[in-house]
């Protein structure tokens, strides 16, 4: 590869150096020269639509947008002049006049709005054009996302984000000229859209109050919030979160662009489900007295747990924990006699495989061929799905999917197979598609551990071996449970089927740590016989953040901290250790999982 040529140009009288191919804006920003922007976002492709970043090039009769004009060696650029200021002001005045940008009742008021900020910076006290006051719709049908056309400036940041970050291209611009407007799925609404995943990246990209989070609307000015950086614990991807809080409550959650894993992106689970969903929190210890769960003090509850534990013999006791527990809890868990971590079907085998693939996300990004075996990231690991979509759709990578269940990724696949019906001819085609793979990546989920999955894996490996040329695929294990890989590696037994595990040794004492599982651990009861088995146990202690069918049948309920209250580390599917930073103090009397377990042991 040839190194890009160095270029030197003059910006506002300053000598600035950069590389050929860089835009004027990039070089100016690298030299701390401020050029106003509106439609530009660093992580998106430039569009050059808003004309705020216009600059003059000495010797050229017209102004050019700095965001999309390549810098040229030896040119003299002026970013700030009386005529540029006038042009930018006119642009802003036109934007203000076109739709109903009425600041006093906007969700984005108080300085969070970039259009408003630009108005202030350009000293706009009133506009010279008549206001159009168009009648425009507001789409409130989405579960989390709202679209107010009155506030839209058509910067297309949402459209580009949807295409370039989430890869679904749910959003686009409809109609021509003054009738331009943002549409979801060719005219559907957020509520009826098939392709929108509610990842919320469009909202994060919107400079005005056009796209907003319903749960965050009017809850506080972001500019005055405390921002805490932590890691999402909803799945094993471990995306970076920026949590905005005010007066000990969450105002909004955004993706962290400094996260090496997610690079600013999130899926619906991390972006919304953790804070925009109503859940019934357990705020104090509960103790069953005369058949009813009643509030108790921590001392009473812990005393009851210890007494019940003492009554049972070591073989009659067990601790079953959620895979959401952090790495620091492993040492505490090992002090218990018998402890298991409940994982998804076939995930135990996946944990035992021992494959570790550092920088999996980067490998997915660079891949020219992606094989997806027994994993369904659109369903379980949204940010991995987004990465696959963008790599396939924007970089032309090939996609091969072997799965028994459909997902939206199927439509982008070169080969998409139900793994049950495979013939010889089919494998010839697979070999053909894989023929030129230079940077192949194989993502395998729990279902790859089934006999059929293993058979497919063996066939694929044979194909790669037969090629004799080109590299073997990077193997990326993709579990569905948050910290299952690390907990299993730490010696905590992965439990796929709770029933047989409970039945192996009849129990008198069972301590279930559901932690902040959204369902409070209730899904354990969905498995056959488990409810009956649990009901037979003398003492069931449930440590959980949310009330559920499981906590309802416990003898003792211990309130656990939730994601934004946790401190420690987790290890993601790339085997990267990621920090959990407490954003808020635990609500009510909730405590950290590890702290509770240590107290029980005393």
């Amino acid at each position, binding site marked *: 590869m040839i190194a890009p040529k160095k270029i030197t140009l003059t910006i506002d009288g300053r000598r600035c150096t950069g590389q050929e191919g860089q835009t004027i804006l990039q070089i100016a920003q690298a030299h701390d020269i401020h050029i106003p922007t509106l439609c530009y976002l660093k992580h998106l492709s430039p569009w050059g639509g808003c004309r705020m970043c216009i600059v003059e090039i000495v010797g050229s009769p017209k102004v050019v947008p700095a965001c999309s004009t390549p810098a040229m060696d030896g040119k003299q650029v002026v970013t700030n002049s009386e005529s540029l200021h006038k042009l930018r002001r006119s642009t802003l005045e036109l934007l203000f006049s076109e739709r*109903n940008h*009425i600041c*006093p*009742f906007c969700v984005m008021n108080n300085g969070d709005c970039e259009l*408003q900020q630009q*108005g*202030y910076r350009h000293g706009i*006290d009133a506009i010279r054009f*008549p206001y159009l006051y168009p009648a425009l719709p507001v789409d409130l049908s989405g579960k989390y996302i709202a679209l107010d056309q009155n506030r839209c400036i058509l910067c297309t940041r949402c459209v580009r984000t949807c295409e370039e970050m989430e890869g679904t291209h749910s959003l686009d611009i409809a109609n021509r000229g003054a009738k331009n407007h943002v549409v979801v799925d060719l005219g559907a609404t957020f509520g009826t859209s098939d392709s929108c995943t509610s990842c919320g990246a469009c909202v994060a990209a919107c400079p005005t109050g056009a796209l907003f989070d319903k749960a965050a609307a009017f809850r506080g000015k972001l500019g005055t919030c405390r921002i805490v950086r932590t890691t999402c614990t909803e799945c094993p991807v471990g995306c970076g979160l920026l949590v905005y809080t005010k007066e000990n409550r969450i105002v909004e959650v955004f993706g962290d662009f400094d996260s090496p894993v997610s690079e600013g992106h999130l899926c619906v689970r991390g972006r919304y489900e953790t804070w925009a969903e109503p859940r019934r929190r357990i705020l104090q210890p509960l103790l069953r007295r005369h058949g009813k769960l009643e509030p108790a003090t921590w001392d009473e509850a812990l005393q009851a747990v210890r007494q019940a534990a003492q009554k049972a013999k070591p073989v009659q006791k067990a601790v079953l924990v959620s895979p959401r527990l952090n790495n620091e809890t492993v040492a505490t868990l090992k002090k218990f006699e018998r402890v298991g971590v409940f994982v998804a079907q076939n995930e135990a085998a996946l944990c035992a495989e021992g494959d570790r693939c550092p920088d999996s996300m980067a490998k997915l990004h660079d891949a020219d061929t992606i094989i997806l075996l027994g994993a369904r990231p659109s369903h379980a690991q949204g940010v991995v799905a987004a990465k696959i979509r963008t790599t396939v759709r924007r970089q032309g990578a090939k996609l091969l999917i072997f799965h028994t269940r459909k997902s939206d990724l199927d439509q982008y696949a070169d080969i998409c197979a139900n793994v049950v019906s495979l013939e010889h001819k089919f494998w010839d085609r697979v070999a053909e598609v894989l023929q030129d793979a230079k940077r192949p990546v194989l993502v395998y989920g729990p279902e790859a551990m089934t006999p059929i999955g293993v058979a497919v894996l063996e066939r694929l490996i044979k194909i790669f071996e037969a090629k004799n040329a080109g590299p073997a695929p990077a193997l990326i294990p993709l579990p569905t449970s948050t910290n299952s890989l690390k907990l299993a590696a730490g010696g905590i037994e992965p439990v796929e089927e709770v029933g047989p595990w409970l039945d192996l040794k009849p129990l008198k004492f069972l301590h279930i740590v559901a932690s902040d599982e959204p369902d409070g651990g209730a899904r354990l009861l969905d498995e056959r016989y488990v409810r009956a088995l649990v009901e037979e146990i003398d003492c069931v202690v449930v440590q959980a953040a949310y009330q559920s069918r499981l906590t309802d049948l416990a003898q003792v309920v211990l309130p656990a901290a939730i994601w934004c209250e946790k401190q420690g580390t987790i290890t993601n599917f790339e085997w990267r250790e990621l920090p959990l930073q407490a954003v808020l103090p635990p609500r009510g009397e909730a405590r950290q999982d590890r702290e509770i377990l240590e107290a029980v042991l005393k």
Partner: protein
Amino acid sequence: MKMNMSDKPKVKVATVWLGGCSGCHMSFLDLDERLVELVKLVDITASPITDVKEIPNVDVGIVEGAVCNEENEHVLRTLRARCKVLIALGDCAITGNIPALRNQFDLDDVVARGFVETESTQIGEIPSDSVVPTLLKKVRPIQEFVKVDVHIPGCPPDADTIWYVLTELLAGRMPQWNEKNLRYD
């Protein structure tokens, strides 16, 4: 502050309240003790604060509110004709703001909603007395009717901003707007 100009005649001011909530006049009263200093320099003639209705010839006219009906328009044009400097005070006068929300709907629907269909109305009637000013089809900011010399945006503009503008004008300077003193909300 060099505001001691007792030898000079007082600057005459009139203020009017068009289609607005009076919040801008309230904000004007928020000048608090600075009002004492202000009345040493200015005479407030016609104003909702003095309750004087007839607008005399003045130096400065201050307008709160958007132009919603024919009376608003008449008052605005009268003030413009009788003042030297016209100040648009607040967002309604400058952008239409909340009163302009009705621009998205048909006027007949708006009137029916307001006088007949409201939940608390038992027997609604749309006023037809000629004393009641006719509503304009669209609510518009004042600069679409008359020349405005100074705009003070804000909903409402805070007292400090009003003070800044008035003292600058009294000192013979035009107020300068930038990101520190501008506010639209």
